[in-house]
């Protein structure tokens, strides 16, 4: 598992690249992933400083585990609003990397970016504060 500073570095790197692809209107699938990686690393930074990393599933990635940890340790402790956690749930629920609904298009990525922006902004503020 990464430590909090690594999560922050990766969130910043992925966010920069996501915004670049978004501005250039290209590669919606990859842009979606970069937005999602930004969110997950920002959430894991917030969890890591509270020593609440999600457990890694064998041969998988713990999106639902992360959701549980977020709701228990961030929403439950009133450091993150429930509607922000709902955004995270929505982001991984509609991130269809196995082409379940075909290939992502520009309209989809505009919706995805619109969903993610408030959460990313909120997590940046949260992660600036020391954990209580």
């Amino acid at each position, binding site marked *: *598992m990464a430590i909090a500073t690594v999560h922050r570095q990766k969130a910043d790197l992925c966010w920069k*690249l996501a915004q670049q*692809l978004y501005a250039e209107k290209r590669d919606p699938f*990859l842009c979606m992933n*970069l937005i999602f990686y930004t969110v997950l690393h920002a959430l894991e930074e917030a969890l890591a400083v509270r020593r609440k990393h999600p457990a890694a599933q064998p*041969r998988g990635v713990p999106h639902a585990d992360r959701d549980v940890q977020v709701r228990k340790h961030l929403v439950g402790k009133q450091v993150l609003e429930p509607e922000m956690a709902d955004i995270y749930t929505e982001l991984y629920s509609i991130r269809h*990397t*196995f082409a379940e609904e075909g290939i992502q298009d520009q309209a989809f990525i505009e919706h995805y970016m619109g969903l993610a922006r408030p959460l990313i902004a909120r997590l940046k503020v949260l992660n600036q504060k020391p954990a209580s």
Partner: protein
Amino acid sequence: MADMTTHRELANQLYEAARSAHAAKQWPITIDAAFYSVFHLMEALNAVDCRDSYNFADADDILTNFLTDQLGERFARNYRYLFYFRRGVLYGPHFPTEPQVTEFMQMCEADYAHVLSVLEQRLRSRRVVHGHA
């Protein structure tokens, strides 16, 4: 979970994106795009036999039970290397070095070409069978 044409088209888009990102030294895009290009081409091959992966564990089971026969043990080993490397650098604590990214990209290019040749062979033989039917 799509038809063969969709997986193949997405794989091709991702392959081209991986090459561009590698030239631009954007490792997160390179790794993600290159891995998913191989993955979606495998899914295109699965779709020929009406199979779909529902998650990555499922994809690995299908690789073990079906695709290794068509693609070979070496491909299966490579795929698992790609899978865990991507997970480690995109989700985990690791930052890849430039030579590691280049090696990853070269493996993906070779694997992509291999799956594509097997897929095209399958499609050709299917056309022949259907042509004789």
